[in-house]
């Protein structure tokens, strides 16, 4: 589904990703872990097409298409969803209006008729229940005055509404207490099926207690330095990232 080959990218002339390789197949959950500054969020931003980031080498294909060639909105319409670490506030724009516009723009891209008001409302009610969301959130301005937990819940609600093939969750757990993490992770789990995939970017292991990964990758200094199964996450949690750093420096010495 997603194939990243030797991806190199940076911002403002600073190289951050130094050759990433990653394959994600339908139905899989991948977790990317790593210390601060290792390039985790850069990877998410590059995949979603944030403008400030410049790709300097390598390739990314999604369902056989060159992802890097597409505009951010086309990537979204192709089925790539980014759950933002810091969801953006738009004063005066209601969440309902925002999501409705997004759903219908994506349907338009796919040559589908726009959803009518009744169909949209029905879908919204369904997905809201999934995320244990309060109706009032939808009429409030997008993310404005939302608590950290509400913002992240809103991200997963949008994911549910847009039904992406690949969901990239950028530190969705950051700033959340354990109950909020459970709600968010359970929401993601309910959306999983054999045709879609999740790439969860996180600093801590605890999200992975609820969102169990098939593969765990450790990102360090712009490269994936270690891959394994969910046990790797537990090992990291136990030993801390220093163990990776030490391993790396030993390798260099060797």
């Amino acid at each position: 589904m997603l194939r990243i080959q030797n991806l190199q990218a940076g911002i403002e002339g600073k190289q951050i990703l130094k050759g990433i390789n990653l394959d994600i197949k339908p139905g899989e959950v991948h977790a990317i872990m790593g210390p601060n500054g290792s390039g985790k969020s850069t990877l998410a931003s590059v995949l979603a097409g944030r403008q400030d980031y410049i790709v300097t080498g390598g390739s990314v294909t999604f369902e056989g298409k060159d992802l890097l060639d597409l505009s951010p909105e086309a990537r979204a319409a192709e089925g790539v969803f980014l759950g933002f670490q810091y969801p953006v506030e738009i004063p005066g724009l209601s969440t309902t209006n925002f999501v409705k516009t997004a759903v219908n723009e994506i349907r338009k891209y796919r040559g589908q008729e726009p959803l009518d008001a009744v169909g949209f409302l029905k879908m919204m009610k369904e997905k809201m229940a999934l995320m244990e969301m309060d109706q009032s959130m939808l009429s409030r301005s997008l993310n404005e005055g939302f608590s950290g937990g509400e913002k992240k819940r809103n991200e997963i609600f949008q994911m549910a509404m847009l039904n992406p093939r690949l969901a990239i969750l950028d530190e969705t757990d950051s700033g959340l207490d354990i109950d909020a993490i459970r709600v968010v992770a359970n929401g993601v789990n309910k959306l999983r099926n054999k045709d879609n995939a999740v790439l969860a970017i996180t600093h801590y292991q605890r999200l992975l207690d609820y969102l169990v990964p098939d593969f765990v990758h450790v990102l360090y200094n712009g490269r994936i330095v270690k891959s394994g199964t969910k046990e790797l996450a537990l090992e990291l949690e136990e030993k801390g990232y220093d163990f990776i750093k030490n391993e790396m420096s030993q390798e260099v010495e060797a």
Partner: protein
Amino acid sequence: MDDKFSSIEQTVLSDYKYGFVTDIESDNAPKGLDESTVRFISAKKNEPQWMLDWRLKAFGQWLKMKEPDWANINYPPINYQDIIYYAAPKQKISVDSLDDIDPELRKTFDKLGISLNEQKRLSGVAVDAVIDSVSIATTFKTQLAEQGIIFCPISEAVQEHPELIKKYLGSVVPATDNYFAALNAAVFSDGSFCYIPKGVRCPMELSTYFRINAENTGQFERTLIVAEEGSYVSYLEGCTAPMRDENQLHAAVVELIAQDHAEIKYSTVQNWYPGDKDGRGGIYNFVTKRGICHESAKISWTQVETGSAITWKYPSVILKGDNSTGEFYSVAVTNNHQQADTGTKMQHLGKNTRSRIVSKGISAGVSQNSYRGLVHVSKRASNARNYSQCDSLLLGDKCGAHTFPYIEVKNNTAVVEHEATTSKVGEDQIFYCNQRGIDTETAVALIINGFAREVMNQLPMEFAVEAQKLLAISLEGSVG
């Protein structure tokens, strides 16, 4: 939404949507302005002597006045002798028989999405349609008359209700008020008159559509609304004009009188032709709008200003009566070479008077957008309250957004607060929308409508939809 607005949707496609010219013969005054022009207009309207005298006096005053130059706008000098001051569609029509309207005229209003046929209308909006200098048709007159409401062209009111016109015309905006008000008083040709009797709640929205059609013509309409004690009326105003290379002058006057406990809600969607991308053509819009509130009365101005090459407009409220309230909600959009200098004046004279100002300016292209407002609390206006919020949004780095509030307080029990911010459409906001599959143009429209929501919410439903579309269209192509 009803028929009317779906038809507007259809006409709203790209650039200026109302730029067509209707091919109708018109009956014009000769170009230029002197006393004979004033007499010509008065004679055309069969006006009584007192009305002519009133005009001539205003004309005399206008000659002595100077065009104001304090606003933050630039335009070449206006040649007042190069304007036709009166243009009327040639056909004589009786306002009571809508079926007799020239089919070309009817088409014009159909294109604008305004049905003059009462049977066809779904929503209760009574319409007065003014084309160039003359009111063409007023709908729902009989239904309104049953409640004692008068809604008719002002020229008709001069004939039919001289006592009301004599009493109120010029009572809020005297001819000497300013240069353009004096000019209007001398040469105004038509406009709407509304009178709501004591205790009556007007059952439908009253609405006037203004359309400039003829070439080289100025439009000088005058609107007068009187709400007697305890009455209520909501009035809507819409304006469009053809695309022409030359600049056309529009200098209107609107006067509102809200007697004790009365409420007037006045909404405008101003979409005069703004000129082309290079700043050629467009309407020069110099408008004086003012209302007076008596005891416990309320006047609320809402405006969505997207059109005109030049906008010079400050809908104001004189809060004369104790416990009266004034409101001003405004969205002003400027794009390309447009210039707008608009805002309000809230004159607190009575005790416990309240005012609220919400102004949202959006600038794009190489346009200049200024908010200019005055809040004045006089010595005897105890416990006056004002809250003003003026926000500006910039799209592109070649436009300007300016805020010029004047706050004068002479009473220590007043509480006056003013806040203003300037920001641009954030790249992070656009990216967030993009990531959800929304293209940049749509994203900008969403963000802008969000920015302006507080004001849009004040508009009657029928207008709100039209206004939202207008915002998006006015800014089309301004974000790449």
